[in-house]
């Protein structure tokens, strides 16, 4: 696992040229192995910040640096970086509904270029780590919300990325399941992998090393 860092410098983002700034002059740095909670009210820019950190959208302005190197705002090289360095757990459990849990957990590795056999082996281990090994052959659509979110976490863990980005992964789960799912993510993350997690739940945030508050598009460090 490489020693990684991900940084934003003076990042601003608007969804349209004349629209309001969703993020304004955001500067932050995330080091390898860190767990970072992003908290803030709805509409404050947490998801936008995550999607920029995860290279899903290009910011309107500012710089993204990976391991100290400035990244372009577009181009096919970003897809490769996403496959090799980033793992995702989305707010709405995003999985291929008619494929098995095992296939879904292996997807990140397949995209990266692993063989199917190798990807399935790693995916099975990740499913086991998050406690849903018994559901491996079930179709994703047959799983409950908590089970499916664990499969998505397994997908992120199996790929052993440098950064796992989780956008309110427990937002639609009950409190007990929230703590289980969060623990599954944080405890099982590979050595050196940083986790950046957007959440409304203070108890979830307390399990992280750092807390960053996002308010009206600005970020500020806070005590977890």
């Amino acid at each position, binding site marked *: 696992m490489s020693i990684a860092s991900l940084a934003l410098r003076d990042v601003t983002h608007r969804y349209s040229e004349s629209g309001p700034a969703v993020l304004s002059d955001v500067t932050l740095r995330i080091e390898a192995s860190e767990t970072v909670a992003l908290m803030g009210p709805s509409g404050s820019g947490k998801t936008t910040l995550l*999607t920029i950190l995860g290279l899903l959208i290009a910011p309107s302005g500012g710089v993204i640096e990976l391991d100290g190197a400035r990244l372009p705002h577009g181009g096919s090289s970003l*897809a490769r970086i996403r*496959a090799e360095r*980033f793992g995702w757990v989305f707010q709405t459990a*995003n999985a291929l509904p008619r494929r098995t849990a095992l296939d879904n957990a292996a997807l990140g590795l397949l995209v*990266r270029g692993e063989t199917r056999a190798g990807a399935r082996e790693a995916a099975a281990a990740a499913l086991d780590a998050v406690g849903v090994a018994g559901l491996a052959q079930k179709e994703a659509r047959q799983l409950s919300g908590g089970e499916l979110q664990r499969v998505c976490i397994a997908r992120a863990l199996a790929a052993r990325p440098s950064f796992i980005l989780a956008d309110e992964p427990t937002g639609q789960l009950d409190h007990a399941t929230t703590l289980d799912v969060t623990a599954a993510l944080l405890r099982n993350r590979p050595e050196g992998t940083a986790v950046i997690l957007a959440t409304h739940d203070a108890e979830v945030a307390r399990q992280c090393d750092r807390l960053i508050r996002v308010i009206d598009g600005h970020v500020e460090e806070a005590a977890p």
Partner: protein
Amino acid sequence: MSWRVRTLAADAILNMTANGARSFIVFAAMAVVFGGLAFLELRQADDLLSFESDYRAAGGYVAIVAQQGGISAARCEQLNAVPGVVAAGGDRGKGQATFTMAPGVLYQQYGVTRDLPRVWDPAYVPAAPQNAATFLSGRALADELALRPGLLLARVGGPPARLTGVLDVNQRAPQAGRSLLEVIPPSGMVDECWVEFTPEAYPGGADMLAAAFATGDNDPTVRPFTAQDQFTRNPSKELASRPQRNGWIAGAALIVGVLLLTAWFRRADLGLYLALGTPRSLLTLMLAIETWLLALAAWAVGVLWALAIQRASGNALTWGGIHLAAVTSACAALSVVIVGPLLSSLVARGNIAALLKDR
């Protein structure tokens, strides 16, 4: 490198089998369109192709040029090199004493003898000349006198000549069936130049011939071989105006629409692949693999279905009809496999995060 192409193809197949109902709907739509096109072609084409064959055999695409003072045989012969010309040859009416009707363009390079022939088998004539002139025989005469290529012939009082072939001239010049035909070199002047065109070239042929033989104030006259009112239908026009000739474009557009619709309902899945790092080009390839497999299977099933229905309804299957049915439906299938994945991949353009929310 992200995605091995083999793994990508396997994932495309897994997606197809996992979403069996969706795949079946797309497959069925394709099979109905491709099979429908093939069936329409089979129903109409056999009749039209058979009619066109008769029309062509009757000289429907033959034009005749005449000019005051005669026409250059060499110039007429040169038309054989013009695209769209099947055959061209001069007709010397004066030499054709055994029948009055011109023998038809495919045989126009031959004159016809009227004298009784003597026949030798070269096996019994060891001293047969090597450079003998050549004759051809009509089939009726050959059958009557047991003539075959290789025999030596001579008109009474004339030098020996070799029989080089037996012609079936029944369709265009039945009178020549009981004659010996003599090769006439394309030189000097002929009374008429007979030109047979391909069906596509025939409509513009008359103008081309008039221009080719125009000399100052001596304009040639061009007339069709068949009488204008001999046929009330024109097979070329009917083949060109049959609805499925261009209708396959509408069929292909319909299928592409179905593919677009299914891609629209898969936006979240496509967004997931992109978010995990699949390049857009490979996502398009994955959609293409799915489309190729479905379209190939649907085309094969559709055409076989059309053939079976045609056969079951008591109609004969001809190679011409099968060829036309296969080509027309394949045009639609090819358009679908090229355009379908490209347009479908446009559904996944833009903001990946927004696609992910479209569950």
